[in-house]
């Protein structure tokens, strides 16, 4: 569900720290350095990186600007390959049988079995296509906030980790505590009262 979809899920972030150096150039460099890398025909099972909003399947920040008015608009792409357990078991069993037949032995050591399993998994991962997920990001640098277009915990964690790695800034998810602490302009005395709050009992 991307920014321009008819229905979106949004997680809000506070980004309070500021970048070292010129903003646009530093963000551009961070996006390029951690841009999405394809894993088709390779044995990796997962790849996460930045991609452009307009062309998410061709990460290139030179062809497509990430600046829209006062906002920086880009996306996180996460590709994953999943090997069905039954497929892995089938190829592993065939490989074990072949090894036993080739060597004339009756059993294999734990190490040999692990090596066969890893080899089979790598070969299957090379052949299996990756499934992509794209999550749009809006970053208003001047007003110190970002919106991430997913409410899924794992996707949010990917975004937070990639953001920190790319820009050396913490993206802090806004939930009741952080919303009160960072985004509600509480005075020191109000903050003290807030810290002491306990749940209300609405039932007599």
């Amino acid at each position, binding site marked *: 569900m991307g920014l321009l979809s008819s229905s979106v899920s949004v997680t809000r972030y506070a980004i309070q720290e500021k970048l070292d150096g010129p903003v646009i150039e530093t963000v551009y460099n961070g996006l390029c350095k951690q841009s999405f890398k394809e894993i088709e025909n390779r044995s990796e099972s997962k790849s996460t990186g930045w991609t452009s909003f307009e062309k998410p399947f061709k990460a290139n920040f030179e062809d497509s600007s990430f600046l829209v008015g006062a906002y920086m608009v880009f996306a996180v792409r996460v590709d994953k390959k999943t090997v069905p357990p039954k497929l892995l078991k089938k190829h592993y069993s065939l490989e074990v049988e072949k090894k036993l037949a080739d060597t004339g032995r009756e059993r294999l050591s734990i190490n040999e079995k692990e090596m066969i399993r890893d080899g089979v998994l790598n070969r299957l991962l090379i052949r299996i296509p990756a499934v992509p997920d794209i999550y749009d990001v809006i970053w208003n640098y001047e007003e110190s906030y970002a919106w991430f277009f997913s409410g899924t915990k794992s996707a949010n964690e990917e975004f937070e980790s990639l953001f920190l790695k790319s820009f050396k800034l913490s993206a*802090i998810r806004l939930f009741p505590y952080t919303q009160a602490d*960072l985004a509600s302009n509480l005075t020191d005395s109000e903050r003290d009262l807030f810290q002491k*709050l306990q749940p209300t009992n*609405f039932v007599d």
Partner: protein
Amino acid sequence: MLDIAVSYDRYKFLGNEFLTWLWFMIENDQTLFTKIDIECTALEMGDKISFENNKKESLEVVSIKGDHAGWEEGKLSLQKGSVVTQLNLLYHSGPGKWRFSLKGESLGIANLKTPEGGRVETKEDIEGAILEKIFLLDKAISFIQALFSRFLRLRISPQWETDSIPMIRNWINSTK
């Protein structure tokens, strides 16, 4: 600042109380919404409320759905000690209508539908469409943030104990 994971769990009750208060305000004082957004003509319950009750032996989760649902069953659930964990809301401002679900513990916004923007027919239209969509999303997001800030200030004030809790209790118990 507290550790993020600890603070999420420690204060999730606050988000659930916010939703209960919001439901109470929707039924009892619509003027609040106009004070926050002068163009707001109404905030209405949408088509779903979810509750959790952890006062029983095992966690009980209840959802009530329906476009024209009566929410009496929901109040009965509150009488039994449940808390509101998710609300679907309809926000009317100016000529537009926004529909979204708000989750208490995370204040996460899901299934947010804004009024329709202009059509994107050429590549040049995309930038305008993005800005228009950001404006429309920001309208609902800012409204929610302002409501939460209003609730938070009430929640830490003495009026919460003296005025709000008795009124909310009466409202909950008004359904038999």
